[in-house]
Each structure stands twice: as C-alpha cells, then as structure tokens.
C-alpha cells in the first residue's frame, strides 16, 4: 500500500506534533527533509524517541532503518531524554589547551556523570561539543543554551551544585 504523504496522524494528542507536521509540510513531505524534521522533533521534545522516529519514517515514506541510521549518525541528535539542565563543555582545540578537561572533571566530581550521561536525579546532563565558536573566550561552556566564556572549574562546580540541589 502506498501511503499518501502526511496521511499518518500523530501518535497522540500532544500539540507539539503539529509543529513537526508543519516542517514536513513546508518541505512537501519529501524524503530529503528528514534531517530538518528530526531537528524540529528534537527541538519540540528534547530528544528523538522510537515513536517519533517511526512516525516520521511513515510520513516521509522512508524505511525506519534509514531514519534510525540518520538519527544515530549525527552527534547533535540524541535518543535519550536529557536532564532538566544541560551543561555542554566545549572540547575544541582552543578550549582543550585552556583546560576543558578540568571542567569536565569538575562536573564528574559534583554530579557523578561522565560526558553523555544524566545525573541520577535527572537534574543535570553533561555533554561535550567540538567548538561552539567562542574560542576567543576559551574555555567555553554552554549552560542551558547560554554560552559562557573563560569558565573556571570553581564556576562550573558551583553551577552544577546548584542545579543538583534544586529538586523542583
């Protein structure tokens, strides 16, 4: 059976699916819009779960394996839910030689997580990036989407400690 583009209704009532549908519509449900659509899903839901991947696959008329393959190829996409707060430590060259390793160690010491992990209380996720483009201010960290420059291990420790305590 050949599905009509856009023929598959969203998996549930969640309004955010409409935004995703918007992206698919804008690209005429063509398969080359896959990466753009995955960006939208991740923006809306924070990560790409299996339900979303399958729905996107059917709507763009792509094999699930292909969608899964793309979602796992690119570092920017994550298949796991993230913590309430994220802390992205830049490990680009400039940041590396100005001490990004010490920053990661500081987070590991405070939240008991290594890059790619989320703390047990789901408060903090630690990620790394290959250059966030603020090398002039190395070492740089992105705290909840905001870039901070010339970060010290003390500063990052304090920030993470605050996040860890906040159970709200």
């Amino acid at each position, binding site marked *: 059976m050949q599905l009509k583009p856009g023929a598959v209704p969203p998996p549930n009532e969640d309004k955010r699916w409409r935004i995703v549908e918007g992206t698919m519509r804008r690209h005429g449900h*063509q*398969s*080359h*819009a*896959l*990466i*753009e659509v*995955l*960006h939208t899903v991740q923006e809306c839901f924070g990560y790409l779960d299996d339900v979303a991947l399958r729905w996107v696959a059917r709507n763009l008329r792509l094999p699930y394996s*292909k969608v899964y*393959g*793309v979602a796992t*190829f*690119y*570092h*920017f*996409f994550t298949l796991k839910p993230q913590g309430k707060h994220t802390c992205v430590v830049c*490990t*680009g*060259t*400039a*940041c*590396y*030689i*100005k001490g990004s390793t010490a920053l990661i160690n500081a987070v590991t010491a405070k939240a008991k997580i290594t890059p790619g992990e989320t703390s047990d209380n789901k408060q903090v996720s630690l990620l790394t*990036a*290959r*250059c*966030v*483009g*603020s*090398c*002039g*201010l*190395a070492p*740089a960290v992105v705290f909840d989407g*905001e*870039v*901070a*420059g010339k970060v010290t291990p003390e500063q990052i420790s304090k920030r993470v400690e605050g996040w860890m305590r906040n159970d709200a």
Partner: protein
Amino acid sequence: MTLDELRELAETEREKQTQVKHEIHVCTAAACLSQRSDQVKASLEAEIKAHGKEDCCKVKGVGCMGLCAAGPLVSDESNGRLYQNVRPADENTDTKEIVASLESEPVERLSLSPELPFFKEQKKIVLENSGKIDPERIEDYICAGGYEALLTALTEMRPLEVIEQITKSGLRGRGGAGYPTGLKWSTVAKASPHNGAKYVICNGDEGDPGAFMDRSVLESDPQRVLEGMAIAAYAVGANRGFIYVRAEYPLAIKRLKIAIKQAETMGLLGANIADTTFSFKIELRLGAGAFVCGEETALIASVEGKRGNPRPRPPYPAQEGLWNAPTLINNVETFANVAPIIRNGGAWYAAIGTEKSKGTKVFALAGRVANTGLIEIPMGMPLRHVIYQLGGGIPDNRRFKAAQTGGPSGGCIPEEYLDMPVDYESLASVGSIMGSGGLIVMDETSCMPDVAKYFMDFCCTESCGKCIPCRVGTVHMHNLLSRITAGEATPEDLALLERLCDVVRNTSLCGLGQSAPNPVATTLKYFRKEYIDHIHHKRCTAGVCEGLARPGKDDKPKGKPAEVTA
C-alpha cells in the same frame, strides 16, 4: 529593485546616518553576547534616553569587532573611541560613564586604543562591514554599498565576464584546499544541467575545532554571503542555492533567516531579480554535528537528508553533485570575497597578497596568545608578525612552542619557522595547511604528544567509518598515542605509529582520513624529543600527562625506564 533604486536607497540611508552625531556601536556577535553585550546595549539606550539625547545619539548592535577576548566592545563612530570589557548597568557604572563623557574626555579606565597593531595591521575585505553595520538590517548593508556588485553583474556583465573577473582575482577556496575559485566556477558553468537544474551550495559547516571565521562572517554580515552566492549562481547558471550551517551556531542561523527574508522582500533574491530574467532562491539547511559533513560529497548527501558519508571523486560535484546535478560548492569566506572583487575588479584583488596566494585571509587567533579574536591579514604576512604584533605575544612570560594551523587536517609549526610567510605554499612546505583559518598558539604548557592524541581522538570519533584505513587506523593511532602519553609505550610502538601515518594517509577515501595523520607527523618531525622523553624517560616536560614525571617538579620518573635504543 533596480540599480538606480538601490543607489537611491543607499543615499537616503547615508543622509539619515549623518544626522546622528554619535553613533554608538555595541558588538552583538556571539562572543560578546555571551558576555551580556545585549544588556550593555539596553543600558546604553536607557542612559541616552535618561539624558534626553535620543536625537543626536543612536545605539546600534553590530557584528564582531575582532578583539573578542576584550569584549563586550563598544565604539563611538564619531570620534573613533573604543571601549573594552564594558559591563551592563546592573554590574557597575560603565555605561553611565560612557554616555556622560560623550562630549568630554573618554573614559580612560575602559579605553582601548584603536592604534594597536591588532587593529592597524589588518586589511579588511571580507570583514569590511563587520562591526560597522547592523547584521539584521539590509538597509545598513545597502548603505555600505551592498548589492551593487550583484545588480551591476546582472545588468552589465555576461556570466562569462563575471567568471573572468573571479579568475583574474586569483581567489582560491577558503574552505581548506585552496582550489582556484574561477576554475571551479567555469567547470560548473560549462556543465550541462541535469533535469534542468544546477545548484550553488555554501559550506558553512565549519567543523574545525578552534575555528570561528565563518560563524563570525555569518553573524556579522550575512547579506554579504547571500550576495556572493547570487553572483555565483548567475555566473554558473543556477537558480537554487543552499546554505549548510551547523546547528551549533543558532545566532548565525537566526541572522541568516532574517537576511534571506529581507533580501526577498526587497526583490534582491527570488524571482526576476532587478527586473532581469535571473531568479535565485536560497534555502537554509542545518548540519547536525558531524565533522565529516564539511567534506563536499558528504555535505551533499546530508543536504539530501542522508547520512553524511563521503563518496569517491570523480565525479566531482561540479559535474555531478546535489541530486546528480552540477553543483558549485564554496566556503562562506570564499563567497564573502566575491562582491568586492566584482565591485573593484579582479586586478585590484590580485594586487594584494603573494604571487600564488592572492588577497587576504581571515584567521581565528586563539590559544596562548594575548589578543584572541578574529583577524584579517594580507596573504604573506610572516607568522611571527601575526603572533607577536597583532596577537600581542604570549602571555604570562611564557615561551612560544608551536602554532597549529588547519585543525585536525593541519599541523604544528615550530619556532624555527616563525618567519615564514603565511600563504598556501609555505604552510604546505612545513607539513601543515592553511585550512579554513584556525590559528592556535601553544606555549610550553602544551605537551605535543598529548596534542597529537587530542587530534587523533577527534579524527577517530569523527570518522564516518566507511573505509577501513580511516576507521581502524585512526583508532589504532589513538591507542598508540594514549600509550605514549601514559608512559607505557615502547620504541616499537613509535615505529608502528610512523608506519600507520603513511598507511592512513595514502589509503583513505576522503580528506578526513588522508589528512588525519598530519598533526602526528608534524609533531613527530619537530618535537621528536618529547616523544622520546615520554617513551624512554617516562617524562612529560610540559607537565600535562598524568602520572609522568615533570623535570624540576618531581625528579624521579615513575615506572621502569624503557630500554634506550633510538
């Protein structure tokens, strides 16, 4: 919009600006924004209002002024004053003092001399508008002469004449390999369309860690890139273009979206530009964090919505690219050079730089150097001059050790070559490359085997895995380097590492694998002593490698010394 209408608009805009006595510029590019420059701007505005000076003073958010490390930067265009590290009103009185002193002596505490070699010795072509115009207003760009080149090309030049000027300019691709731009354009122009289509792609992936030139150009002067792409499309006969930008650059994406919309509204992009038969539409595509997607064939796969696996070339994208159609793919900075070349002529551009490397190059100066930020210099400037004059030298009285250019595809240049001119050939002659323009300065606190390990870690995690030499070879090299930096390696390991450099370089499919051994090979060549120290004496002079002895600090090396053979 016609050329006359464009000029009229520029004139009106210019007049409007001369009525403002003090035009205060606040840098709102990424690095300064991360230091809260948006709040600096808001508090300057509030202060001006409080003084009732709205009529003669205007605050404008502009792009990167270059010296990002001293940000947020603020300048007063009327008298050339420049202020650094300006804090917003809730932190102290910086913005109050600046506004209060507009007519009197400058605020000394914050002053930064525009006479510094950092500013004086640059030559700005690509960055000529950066820090001068508001990147979110197309009128500002037009006022600075924007879109004149495009409309002139469309109405007064044939496509071949446009290509001729680019060829004459000697411009070479700024994305890394330095391929002659004119030659690439004429190949695409000659190719016959596939299903009636040809495409232009702007490569804004900028995956090199330590590089932020393209980001800065996109954030500071996005219209410039659009104009360059449109001129290119006209020259090669394309009607559709894509800009591929990494998702990690949200501000660049936001400003590009605004820029595309504004250019379309004004009729400078879209159907029948300037009432001619030429139409050109630009779409944005977001990368998703894969370094290999900067490679042109991988990038094309990614625009097609696939995994970013490179494919063998030929066929080159110029013949068979996006959806099998002839595709022109150039770097952001390459496109940013196009409008001025058309405006001033190819000969003008060719008069700048060296014999084989024409024009200027933008570098992201970072690492252990006093003035970190963005610079644009004429090709051929000696490296020493760049680091010590513009860069202000090495802070904390430390010694220069190496300059890393070209990121993971490049190499480390030692002190003995500091007097070398910066151009494609000279850099290649010492085993490094120009690359996209990352220039990272290292001092004695960097350990070279550790730096090599760092780049190899990058390459093996970024390898797409399609071919074995790169997928397996880089992991193996990384393991060997880990053994070396942990003080566990034998002299045989070193020999194996050198052999792997050759194998991976010569048998990998794409540029990632082919150039991955460069950082290892150059550090082995110029800093061999450090490798020997790690292997034979279990010593890390820089004190970076954990568990190894540092001379002068712990005298006794840990572990058993290896047998000395070399």
